[in-house]
């Protein structure tokens, strides 16, 4: 998938997005918060692309920009070569058919007043697809594919009669029912139990096969991303730090932040000598210049002169493995990860 270097399905070019805090009546206010700082990504047809970062890193903003819930200040987003940030009217409606989103919180993403049938059939109704019996058939198929079977047991229920996992399946069915070519899954399992998360992952994988869809999977967990994704991008404070294939990122992480994320994962199984990078500073550096590398305040191996002055750009260090670091430490940590050592979520 990632090997096929043909035209990307989705392309983000130099995306910048800032949020402005509300100006208060007397105070100065109006502070700008940079959510995304010139983010560029390419997502290829058929892959599951993982976007990993901590809270506030801007990963959800990327998803919201892609589905046009928000517009970027700068940069372009292209789906199948078509610029999407300027779409209006009919073209926007066609775009909405192709791109769907699964939201983080299944307790908030379903209208409490609508039955499961009404929720899942809404996209069909909005886009005037099929007659009522065809819609029923589509809804039934989508629910079954999302793991709610027999669908007859669920169609007339209301969100308050469903568990969290069932609600998320309804949300997935709603995203699937239009047979979109691109789906943004924004931390779809962060509110769910681990066992249900695993089932949701498998549904997403099946969905990719069945619909021939491409997924952007947004998560804070490298372990989940490794399980699900073909490629992973690591984002920190609105800046992409490292992009590479999932195996490469987990087994051969280069960026100190990626290494810190891996260090932070709980491990179980036969780990032997634990692989440990220790790239995170115990105490953050204060008084950092705004032009510094975004990770400089927390980076242990940072070069005090170079890293405090400039922001590194993404460089291809290994084939298809991009890292934004001035002095990438190519040496891997001591200790055998081993095949029997697992990262937990």
């Amino acid at each position, binding site marked *: 998938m990632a090997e096929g270097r043909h035209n990307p399905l989705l392309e983000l070019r130099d995306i910048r997005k800032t949020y402005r805090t509300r100006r208060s009546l007397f105070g100065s206010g109006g502070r700008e918060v940079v959510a995304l700082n010139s983010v560029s990504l390419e997502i290829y047809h058929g892959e599951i692309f993982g976007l990993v970062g901590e809270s506030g890193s801007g990963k959800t903003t990327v998803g919201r920009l892609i589905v046009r819930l928000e517009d970027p200040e700068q940069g372009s987003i292209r789906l199948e070569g078509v610029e999407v940030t300027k779409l209006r009217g009919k073209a926007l409606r066609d775009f*909405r*058919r192709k791109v769907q989103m699964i939201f983080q919180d299944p307790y908030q993403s379903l209208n409490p007043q*609508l039955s499961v049938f009404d929720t899942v059939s809404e996209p069909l109704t*909005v886009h005037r697809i099929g007659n009522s019996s065809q819609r029923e058939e589509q809804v039934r198929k989508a629910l079954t594919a999302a793991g709610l079977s027999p669908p007859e047991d669920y169609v*007339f229920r209301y969100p308050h009669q469903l568990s969290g996992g069932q609600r998320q399946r309804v949300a997935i069915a709603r995203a699937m029912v239009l047979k979109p070519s691109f789906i943004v899954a924004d931390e779809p399992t962060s509110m769910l139990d681990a066992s249900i998360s695993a089932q949701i992952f498998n549904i997403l994988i099946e969905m990719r096969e069945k619909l021939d869809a491409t997924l952007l999977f947004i998560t804070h967990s490298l372990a989940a991303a490794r399980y699900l994704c073909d490629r992973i991008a690591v984002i920190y404070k609105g800046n992409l730090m490292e992009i590479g294939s999932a195996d490469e990122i987990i087994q051969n992480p280069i960026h100190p932040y990626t290494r810190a994320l891996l260090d932070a994962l709980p491990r179980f199984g036969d780990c032997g000598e634990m692989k440990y990078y220790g790239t995170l500073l115990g105490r953050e550096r204060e008084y950092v210049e705004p032009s510094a590398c975004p990770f400089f305040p927390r980076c242990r191996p940072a070069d005090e002169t170079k890293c405090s002055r400039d922001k590194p750009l993404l460089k291809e260090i290994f084939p298809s493995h991009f890292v934004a670091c001035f002095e990438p430490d190519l040496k891997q940590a001591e200790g055998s990860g081993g095949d029997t050592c697992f990262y937990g979520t």
Partner: protein
Amino acid sequence: MELATKKIVLRYHWVFRIREGWGIFHQSLLGKIGLVLLLLFALMALCSYIPPRLDPMYDPMTGVDPKISHSTGPSMRHWLGTDFMGRDILSQLLAGARIAFMVGVSAAFMSIFLGTAIGMIAGYVGRIMDTLLMRLADMIMVMPTLLVVLILSSLFGQLNIWTIVLIIALFRWPGVSRVIRSQTLSLKQRPFIEAARVAGASHLRIIFRHIMPNVLPLSFLYMTFRVTSAIIIEAALAFLGFGDPGTVSWGMMLQWVWKTGHMFKAPYWLLPPGICISLITLSFYMLGRAMDEVLDPRLRREQEAG
């Protein structure tokens, strides 16, 4: 998934929710008292059609007892007595219940309709629209309704009862619209609205399908409070002599008592309409309080179990 089954299940859903709501309502003593009182008043309003059919002299407006030409106390012929020209007070009281319901419910319904529509538009559209509509609401909110109606009626002469209803509705929507606006603002941020947008739903669809069903319960709650204020405004207006002269409302009755100098001479005439006005507003208020508990789980009393 035949349509028939679907309908049954959907109906069951409503039955279930109403029954659940009734269960909470049932625990509230206030609500029960209010409901019983309201049922009594509704019965009175229905009964208002009976006396004029028995005998034309029981007509609340035009029926005059040929044998009586001044106010008399209760008797077998006139259970609550007669007014200054021999009209039956009981039949006036019954007709007054009908007018009170009519004025209260229709004025409240109209102001709720306006308030909900304007509140949803202000909250959903936002920006300049929000500012314009809410400043308009502020301006109307600070105007004393009664005073404005008094001025209008002195300008245009006697006002028709429906004109009064309309004016009350036009002056009582701002409170509702503020509440609906804030509810809409918080709903607008909820992910299910964003999910609808991602699905491609239009603004109209989002307003009617996703926001309206979630604010309507609140509107209906406010309706019970608006009924109260509409009845009081109409009664005050009628008492001050600016009511519709073609209708018999309780305020009108009080005005006749006062105007003909029977204030301290005829308690059988003064007390019934006074008590009725107090009780009907009280019962709508109690009903509203109980419904508040049904709709807002934070107000519910703690359950004994668990």
